C-alpha cells in the first residue's frame, strides 16, 4: 500500500513537471482570454456586474482591453457594446459593471467578453482572444413572480429619468398610476411594456409610489428620489492649542431617505501625507489629533458620500498658518484715574510662547475712541491716556498669531469707569427780563453741560447776583440739578449775575451776564423774514462798538404756555445765522430777537425778525359785525387776528357777497363756491383795512356775505355766510321825517312850557275884574248912577232860543245891512239865548273897560241880537246833533217868533259844551256857570254892535 502511494506521488510530480514545461513552451501562443466569467445583478442599482480573471498572465501586469457585448431578450439583439481598458495584474479578479436603463428584471440579458492585449511595453504580446460564450442573466419567470412591475424600488437623484417595465405575458390588464394619473406605456417587445418617468422631483423622503392594478390585484414600486449631494463648502482647519486641528465645513442639504433607503451623507477626512483617515461622526466638523512630532504641512481631503455620489474638497496648509488663538482671559484694570487707566490680560498658553499681536479697542457708549496694537507673549498690559472723567469705557481685546496672521481670536471685553473731575466749561446762560414798577423780573436760563464738559454728575447750580451800583447788595441762590433755569426779582440798577455748575469734585468756570438798569428797547421794528423747511436764515446789520458777540433768541413753541426759549451765540464778526430746529412747524410764527452782547456782558436788543418756515392759509375767518344797515348799503367791520394765531402773514381779506342779482360790482369778480353757488368777491388787499362798505343794494333784499383772510399760502375758509336783509326805503324815509318833526314839536312844547307865562300873558291874559276896574268909578261919576256891575250869577236866562239865521234877517239889521249883505256871512245856525217868559224888569248889563272895543251900556229892556261867530258852536253842536237837525229845530222856533220882534239878543257867556244837548237844553236850563271860554267881552245893543271885521269873518269860515 505504501509502495503504491510512493509510486503515485512520483507519477504526479513527473506529470506536473511535464505540464510546466509544456506551458512555458506554449506561452507565446495561448490567448489571454477572460476566464470564469460570472454575471450577477445588483437590483438596487440595476447594475450587471461582470467578474472574470485572466489566467497565465506572462508578466506581473499587463495593459489590456476587454470588449464587452450585451444583448437583451435574445443574443442577437445586442443593445450595448463597449471596451473596458485596464491594467491587469497577475491573479487579479476583474470587475466591471454596466447600468441598465431598463430594469434587468424585465428581460433576459446576455453578456459576452473577449480580451485584447495591447501593451506598448510588450509589443510581442499583440493578440485578440475569441468571444467568450454568452452568459445569460435570466429575468424572473412570470409564473414564479407575484410582482407586476420592475424595478421593485429604485434610488435616483433628483432630475433623473427612470424606466419601469412589466411583462404582459401573464399580466394582461395592468394599469399603473402615479398618484391618480394613469401612466402611458410603450411596447418594447411582444410581451414587454415600459414606461418612463423623466426629470423626477424630490417630494419627500418616503419616495414616490407607482401603483399598478390588475383586476383586483395591486402591486407597486417606490421610486426614492434623493437630493443631489452637494460639495462641502468653506472647508478649513485650524488649531487653538497645537494639539488638535479642528476642521469645519458647511455640509449643504441632507440626503437621507426613509425606509433606510439612504442615510445622511457621511464625511471622511483623509490626510494624504500621513495616510491617516478618519470617519467624521458630525456632519459639519471633525477633530484631528496633532501628533507631538507634528508635521509642518497637512494635505486634507474631505469626502462627502451617499449611496449615489461622492464629493471631495481639499485643503493643504502649514500648521503654523492655521493658528487661531483663543480669546484673551483675565481682562482687568488698575490705576483707574480721571483720564488714565491701565488694562491687563492674559493669553491661554499657545505652544512655546508663540508671539502674538493684540488689538485693543476702547469704546465709549457711542463709538470707538482709541485703538492700539500690542505685541505680547502671554501677559499683556496697556495704559490708556486722554480719557474723559466720569465716563464708562469698554475695552475689547483680541489677539492673532503674529507671524502668519491667520485669524483673530474672539473678542474679550470688560468695562471700567473713570473718576469724576470738576466741570470744565462755563454754562451757556441767557435771560428774559421783564421790567415792572422799577423791578426787574429776570428769568435766568442755562443749557445743561454736556457729559463731556460736566465731568461727573452735576449736583447743583450756584447763582450770585450783585448790584453793580451797590456792590454790597448780593443775592445768592442754589438751584438743585436737573433744573435749567430760575427766576430772580432784582431791584433798580444794573446787576451782574454769575452762574456756576457744581459736581462732587468741584465748580465750573463762572458764566456772567449783566442785567442793565434801563429797560429793554422795545421799539425796535420787527422785520418779516421767510423761512424754509430747514429753518430760518437771519441776517442783521453789523454793529460797531464795544461788543463781544450776538445772541439770537426765539421761542421754540410760541403758542404754548412755556415758550421754550432757545438762544444761539454768534461771533462778533458774523451778521447772520441759520436757525434750524426740529421743533419748527409750518404755520407757526416764530419771533427772533437779535441782541448784541457788550464787553460788560450786557445784552442790547438790536433787531427783531418774524417769520414762518412755511406759511399756511388761515384756519379761521374773522368775526364780522354788520353796522349801518340801510336799504341800500351796510358796513362790515371785523377785528384783527391775534398775531400769534396767524398761520401766515395776512395779506388781505376777501368779502364774498351772495345776492340774487346777476351783476357784480365792477370792483368785484364773480367766483364759484363749493356748493355750486356763486358770489361777488371783493379783494381788500390792505390787511390793515378792517371795514368794508357794501353798497348799491336793493331795499328789502336778502344778502349773504362772508369775510375771509388770505395769506401767501391761500385763502382761509369762507364757508360761513352771514345773512342780511335790507330794510324798506319808505319807512326809512318816514323815520327821517318823523324824527325831526317830533323833535321840533317836543322842543316847541318845552319852549312853550318854559315860556308859558309869557304865552299865557300874550294869548290868554287874565280877565279883569269889573269891580276893580277904574271905569267903574268913571261910570258912576259921569253918566248913569243906575248902572251897576252885573253879577254873572244874576244873569240866568229863562230860555234859550235858537234862531235860524236866514236871508230875511238882513232887514232886521238896517244899520248893518250893507255889511252883512256884502259879506259872505256863514250860514250855520246861530245860537240865541232868549229870556224866560216871566222874566221882567231891567236886566243888568255888563260893561267892560276894554279899550279894544267901543263898549257901551245896554238898555235894560232890549237885548242886542248879534250874530255869533260860529267858530265854536258848530263844533259844540256837532257833538249833539247834525247841523240839519239843529237847523230844523231853529226853523220851527222861528216860525213861532216873528222876525224883528226881538230887539235884543244876548250872547251867553256860559255856553258850555256839556249843556249842548238839545233836549236837556230846552227842558232843563243849565245852571249858570262860570265861562270857560270868553268870546265877547261885553253885551252890547244890536245897533251898537260893531261890524265884524272882514279878517275875522274870513277866519270864521268853516273848514
Amino acid at each position, binding site marked *: 500500500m505504501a509502495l503504491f502511494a510512493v509510486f503515485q506521488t512520483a507519477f504526479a510530480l513527473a506529470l506536473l513537471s511535464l505540464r510546466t514545461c509544456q506551458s512555458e513552451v506554449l506561452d507565446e501562443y495561448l490567448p489571454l482570454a477572460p476566464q470564469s466569467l460570472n454575471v450577477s445583478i445588483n437590483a438596487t442599482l440595476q447594475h450587471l456586474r461582470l467578474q472574470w480573471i485572466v489566467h497565465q498572465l506572462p508578466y506581473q501586469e499587463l495593459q489590456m482591453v476587454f470588449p464587452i457585448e450585451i444583448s437583451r431578450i435574445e443574443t442577437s439583439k445586442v443593445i450595448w457594446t463597449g471596451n473596458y481598458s485596464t491594467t491587469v495584474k497577475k491573479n487579479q479578479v476583474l470587475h466591471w459593471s454596466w447600468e441598465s436603463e431598463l430594469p434587468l428584471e424585465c428581460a433576459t440579458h446576455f453578456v459576452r467578453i473577449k480580451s485584447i492585449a495591447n501593451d506598448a511595453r510588450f509589443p510581442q504580446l499583440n493578440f485578440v482572444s475569441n468571444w467568450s460564450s454568452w452568459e445569460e442573466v435570466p429575468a424572473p419567470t412570470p409564473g414564479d413572480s407575484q410582482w407586476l412591475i420592475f424595478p421593485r424600488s429604485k434610488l435616483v437623484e433628483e432630475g433623473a429619468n427612470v424606466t419601469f417595465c412589466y411583462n404582459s405575458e401573464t399580466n394582461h390588464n395592468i394599469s399603473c398610476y402615479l*398618484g391618480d394619473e394613469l401612466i402611458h406605456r410603450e411596447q418594447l417587445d411582444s410581451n414587454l411594456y415600459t414606461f418612463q418617468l423623466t426629470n423626477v422631483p424630490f417630494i419627500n*423622503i*418616503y*419616495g414616490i409610489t407607482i401603483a399598478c392594478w390588475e383586476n383586483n390585484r*395591486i402591486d*407597486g*414600486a*417606490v421610486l426614492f428620489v434623493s437630493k443631489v449631494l452637494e460639495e462641502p463648502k468653506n472647508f478649513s482647519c485650524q488649531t487653538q492649542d497645537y494639539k488638535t486641528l479642528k476642521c469645519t465645513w458647511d455640509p449643504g442639504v441632507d440626503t437621507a431617505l*426613509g*425606509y433606510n433607503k439612504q442615510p445622511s451623507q457621511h464625511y471622511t477626512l483623509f490626510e494624504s501625507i500621513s495616510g491617516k483617515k478618519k470617519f467624521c461622526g458630525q456632519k459639519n466638523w471633525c477633530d484631528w489629533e496633532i501628533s507631538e512630532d507634528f508635521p509642518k504641512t497637512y494635505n486634507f481631503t474631505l469626502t462627502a458620500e451617499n449611496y449615489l455620489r461622492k464629493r471631495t474638497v481639499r485643503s493643504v496648509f502649514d500648521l503654523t498658518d492655521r493658528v487661531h488663538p483663543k480669546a484673551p482671559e483675565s481682562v482687568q484694570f488698575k490705576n483707574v484715574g480721571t483720564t488714565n487707566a491701565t488694562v491687563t490680560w492674559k493669553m491661554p498658553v499657545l505652544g512655546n510662547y508663540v508671539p502674538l499681536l493684540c488689538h485693543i479697542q476702547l469704546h465709549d457708549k457711542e463709538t470707538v475712541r482709541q485703538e492700539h496694537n500690542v505685541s505680547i507673549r502671554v501677559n499683556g498690559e496697556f495704559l490708556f491716556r486722554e480719557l474723559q472723567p466720569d465716563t464708562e469705557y469698554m475695552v475689547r481685546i483680541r489677539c492673532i498669531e503674529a507671524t502668519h496672521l491667520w485669524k483673530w481670536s474672539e473678542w474679550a471685553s470688560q468695562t471700567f469707569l473713570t473718576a469724576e473731575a470738576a466741570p470744565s466749561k462755563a454754562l451757556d446762560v441767557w435771560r428774559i427780563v421783564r421790567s415792572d414798577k422799577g423791578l426787574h423780573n429776570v428769568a435766568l436760563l442755562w443749557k445743561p453741560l454736556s457729559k463731556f464738559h460736566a465731568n461727573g454728575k452735576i449736583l447743583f447750580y450756584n447763582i450770585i447776583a450783585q448790584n453793580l451800583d451797590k456792590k454790597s447788595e448780593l443775592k445768592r441762590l442754589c438751584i438743585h440739578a436737573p433744573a435749567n433755569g430760575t427766576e430772580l426779582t432784582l431791584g433798580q440798577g444794573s446787576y451782574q449775575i454769575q452762574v456756576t455748575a457744581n459736581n462732587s469734585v468741584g465748580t465750573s468756570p463762572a458764566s456772567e451776564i449783566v442785567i442793565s438798569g434801563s429797560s429793554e428797547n422795545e421799539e425796535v421794528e420787527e422785520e418779516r423774514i421767510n423761512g424754509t423747511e430747514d429753518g430760518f436764515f437771519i441776517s442783521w446789520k453789523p454793529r460797531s462798538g464795544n461788543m463781544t458777540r450776538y445772541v439770537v433768541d426765539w421761542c421754540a413753541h410760541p403758542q404754548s404756555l412755556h415758550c421754550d426759549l432757545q438762544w444761539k451765540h454768534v461771533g462778533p464778526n458774523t451778521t447772520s445765522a441759520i436757525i434750524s430746529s426740529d421743533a419748527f412747524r409750518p404755520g407757526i410764527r416764530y419771533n427772533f430777537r437779535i441782541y448784541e452782547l457788550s464787553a460788560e456782558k450786557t445784552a442790547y436788543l438790536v433787531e427783531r425778525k418774524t417769520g414762518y418756515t412755511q406759511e399756511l392759509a388761515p384756519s379761521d375767518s374773522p368775526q364780522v359785525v354788520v353796522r349801518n344797515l340801510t336799504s341800500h348799503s351796510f358796513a362790515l367791520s371785523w377785528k384783527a387776528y391775534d398775531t400769534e394765531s396767524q398761520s401766515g402773514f395776512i395779506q388781505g381779506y376777501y368779502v364774498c357777497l351772495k345776492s340774487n342779482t346777476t351783476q357784480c360790482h365792477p370792483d368785484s369778480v364773480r367766483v364759484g363756491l363749493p356748493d355750486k353757488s356763486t358770489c361777488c368777491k371783493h379783494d381788500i388787499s390792505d390787511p390793515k383795512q378792517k371795514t368794508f362798505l357794501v353798497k348799491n343794494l336793493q331795499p328789502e333784499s336778502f344778502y349773504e356775505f362772508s369775510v375771509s383772510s388770505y395769506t401767501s399760502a391761500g385763502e382761509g375758509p369762507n364757508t360761513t355766510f352771514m345773512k342780511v336783509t335790507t330794510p324798506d326805503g319808505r319807512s326809512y324815509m318816514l323815520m327821517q321825517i318823523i324824527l325831526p318833526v317830533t323833535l321840533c314839536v317836543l322842543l316847541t312844547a318845552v319852549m312853550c312850557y318854559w315860556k308859558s307865562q309869557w304865552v299865557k300873558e300874550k294869548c290868554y291874559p287874565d280877565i279883569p275884574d269889573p269891580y276893580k276896574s277904574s271905569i267903574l268909578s268913571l261910570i258912576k261919576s259921569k253918566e248913569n248912577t243906575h248902572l251897576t256891575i252885573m253879577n254873572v250869577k244874576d244873569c240866568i236866562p229863562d230860555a234859550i232860543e235858537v234862531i235860524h239865521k236866514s236871508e230875511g234877517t238882513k232887514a232886521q239889521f238896517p244899520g248893518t245891512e250893507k255889511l252883512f249883505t256884502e259879506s259872505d256871512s256863514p250860514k250855520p245856525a246861530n245860537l240865541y239865548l232868549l229870556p224866560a217868559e216871566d222874566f221882567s224888569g231891567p236886566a243888568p248889563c255888563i260893561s267892560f273897560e276894554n279899550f279894544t272895543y267901543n263898549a257901551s251900556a245896554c238898555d235894560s229892556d232890549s237885548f242886542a241880537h248879534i250874530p255869533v261867530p260860529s267858530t265854536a258852536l258848530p263844533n259844540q253842536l256837532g257833538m249833539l246833533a247834525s247841523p240839519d237837525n239843529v237847523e230844523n229845530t231853529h226853523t220851527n222856533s222861528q216860525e213861532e217868533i216873528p222876525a224883528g220882534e226881538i230887539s235884543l239878543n244876548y250872547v251867553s257867556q256860559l255856553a258850555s259844551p256839556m249843556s249842548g244837548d238839545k233836549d236837556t237844553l230846552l227842558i232843563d236850563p243849565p245852571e249858570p256857570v262860570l265861562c270857560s271860554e270868553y268870546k265877547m267881552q261885553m253885551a252890547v245893543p244890536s245897533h251898537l254892535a260893531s261890524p265884524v271885521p272882514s279878517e275875522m269873518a274870513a277866519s270864521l269860515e268853516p273848514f
Partner: protein
Amino acid sequence: MDLRAGDSWGMLACLCTVLWHLPAVPALNRTGDPGPGPSIQKTYDLTRYLEHQLRSLAGTYLNYLGPPFNEPDFNPPRLGAETLPRATVNLEVWRSLNDKLRLTQNYEAYSHLLCYLRGLNRQAATAELRRSLAHFCTSLQGLLGSIAGVMAALGYPLPQPLPGTEPIWSPGPAPSDFLQKMDDFWLLKELQTWLWRSAKDFNRLKKKMQPPAAAVTLHLEAHGF
C-alpha cells in the same frame, strides 16, 4: 347608514334620554367597592382617546407615504399584512364571545400591534414623526396595561404567548418598499379598527357590569378609514 329627518329627531331624543340618565349610571356614580366598572370605563375612555390620537398620527404618516396611500378612497386588497391581527369578525361570532375571550383577544391584538408600531417608529425618517409615534406607543402601552387591569379585576389570567407564535420584536423586511408601505398602511388601518372594536367591547362589558334598568349604551359606528 341612511339617515332621514325623522331619524335625526329620534337620535336627538335618544341623546336627550342618555343625558337625562347619565347621572344615574351606576358605573359612573358608584360608591363603596368600585369593582371592575371604573377600570372598564377608564379603558373605554382610553380607547376613545387613542382613536382621536391615531386619527392625527395616521394623517401625518399617510401623507409621508404619499399617494395612493393617503387618498381617502384607497382600499387595497390586504397584501403582505397577514401577520397583523385582524379586528374584523363576524357579528354573530363577536356577540357569542365571552368576557374572558373578548378581553384576551384585545390584549393579544394590542400586544402584537404595539410590536409592529415600535418597528414603524424605528423606520421613521423624521424626528417629528418619531416623536408622534413614540407618544402613541406610550399611550397604547397604557391601554394594554388597562386591559390587563380589567382582566385581573375580573379574575382572568393574562394570555401567555405560545411558543413559536410569539411575535418577533419587529416585522421583518418587506420584500419590496411598496409592500413595506402597504404594511404600514394596514398596520394603521388595523389599529384603527381595533380601537373601534375595543370601544364596542368595553362598552358591552360596561353594560354588563351595570344594573339593566340604568344601562345606557352608546352605539358607535365604524366609518371608513
